[in-house]
């Protein structure tokens, strides 16, 4: 029996158009994104032998059939959306290193603009239906608004300063083909953006997207023989906080502490790097507040200083520490976590055109899924 090589890389990424009210099915969108990711890697669909639905849906059987591939390995990461999509790379790596699969396809698609939106799954939770919805405590903007309110109170932050996050995201989106929202946004535009739940404005909230996304993982050794430069998975950390998904938004003793304070040190340790070695970051931004909290927990800013860190264009195009260089979930598209992984790969491969960073060797990718979190360090092949 041969020993599988250590080290994995992302070798192909694919995505569909992102928009509201797509008339296509999720399966159809995922199939297109998967074919694109496989072609990007320079592989044939039949060479994919591992399938990882990053979240629950859809199963791999129909996708494998449509691609003409045989499944040697199928597994779901089991983490909540934004953490599952980033953490899926760990499942892929385990399968590859164990010799269970060679080329693993990770995929996720959603139709956020379907009836009920991204909120609907919360209505099926007894605790939320019983103790939250009757009060109107429903929909992610409400939870994250309550977090932001407490955060601003604890650290003396002016909510208007969150403008820097939204403005930077929009500026990056303007440089990114395929971005869903590119209308210019400045600070005045941010302050004029309608309030959703104080202190969160519409511009603090992610987009609603229909679309499909996929990426292909293989061994680093094999990656070096493929057509594109490998995006090396240098470190991965996954974490689950000691809270249920029901309780995380209201009952966490420290309401604004996320799983990234656990996942980031794991990822750094494995990669042998620290925050000061990171050139840029792709950080899950379902809301501006969630990006800020992870920015701090990944060690780029001290606790309570994330918003100050982002002032004066620091995370925007031309800034010293670029974050979410395609516009993220605020302005590019909202396929939880996947948009961030794909952008990290494209930057380290040096193919981002107007948005390409001069230095894109080491990227931290952070994916939040309620009580779960995943951090991945992606590097150029050095």
């Amino acid at each position: 029996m041969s020993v599988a090589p250590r080290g994995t890389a992302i070798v192909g990424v694919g995505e569909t158009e992102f928009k509201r009210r797509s008339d296509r099915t999720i399966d159809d969108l995922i199939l297109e994104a998967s074919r694109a990711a496989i072609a990007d890697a320079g592989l044939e669909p039949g060479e994919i032998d591992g399938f990882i639905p990053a979240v629950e849906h859809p199963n791999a059987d129909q996708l494998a059939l449509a691609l003409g591939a045989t499944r040697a390995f199928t597994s779901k990461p089991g983490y909540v959306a934004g953490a599952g999509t980033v953490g899926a790379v760990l499942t892929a790596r385990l399968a590859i290193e164990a010799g269970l699969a060679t080329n693993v396809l990770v995929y996720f698609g959603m139709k956020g603009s379907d009836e009920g939106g991204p909120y609907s799954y919360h209505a099926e939770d007894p605790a939320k239906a019983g103790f939250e919805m009757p009060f109107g405590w429903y929909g992610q903007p409400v939870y994250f608004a309550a977090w932001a309110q407490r955060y601003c109170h604890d650290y003396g932050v002016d909510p208007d300063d969150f403008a820097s996050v939204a403005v930077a995201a929009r500026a990056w989106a303007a440089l990114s083909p395929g971005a869903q929202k590119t209308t210019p946004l400045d600070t005045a535009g941010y302050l004029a953006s309608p309030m959703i739940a104080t202190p969160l404005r519409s511009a603090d909230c992610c987009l609603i997207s229909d679309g499909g996304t996929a990426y292909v993982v293989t061994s680093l050794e094999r990656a070096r023989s493929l057509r594109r430069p490998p995006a090396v998975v240098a470190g991965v950390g996954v974490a689950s906080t000691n809270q249920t998904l029901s309780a995380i938004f209201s009952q966490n003793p420290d309401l604004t502490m996320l799983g990234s304070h656990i996942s980031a040190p794991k990822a750094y340790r494995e990669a042998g790097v620290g925050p000061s070695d990171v050139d840029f970051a792709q950080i899950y931004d379902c809301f501006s507040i969630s990006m800020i909290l992870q920015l701090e927990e990944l060690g780029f800013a001290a606790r309570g200083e994330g918003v100050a860190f982002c002032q004066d264009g620091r995370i925007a195009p031309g800034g010293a520490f670029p974050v979410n260089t395609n516009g993220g979930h605020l302005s590019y598209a909202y396929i939880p976590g996947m948009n961030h992984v794909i952008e990290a790969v494209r930057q380290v491969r040096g193919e981002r055109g107007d948005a390409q960073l001069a230095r894109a060797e080491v990227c931290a990718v952070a994916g939040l899924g309620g009580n779960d979190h995943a951090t991945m360090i992606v590097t150029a092949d050095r």
Partner: protein
Amino acid sequence: MTEIRVPNFAPPTNLPLIAPFWDATAEGRLVLPACSQCGEWQWYPVEGQACHPDATREWRDVAHTGTVFTHTRVERGFLPSGSETPYVLALVELDGVVGPRLVTAIVGEGADTIAIGDRVRLTPTKFATHTLPTFSVVAT
């Protein structure tokens, strides 16, 4: 001044995990679940949850006063129905209850200017289907 609303969205009536809470609010009481053996709060309650395997879930009366931990004024509601805006929500830490926070809506004078640390008191809102344990600001 804009009128502050209160969402009218009835809780499910067929879930044993949550029914005691709503039975109590109908009587003007407030109860939270705890382990019958050691008294540890089980909030939110989870099926089969037990710090002591032989213990049962015991719903205990709690104080009708507390302190605002955080809050938000909702301008755009996402409930399927019954959520005319604006309404004001808060997480309240009840006096004598360490750990659990109650999600609630704030009604009456001062709701619109609520702040973290404000003292609040149970001020229920009665609907045809249920009594919502809303709170109001205690004047200082």
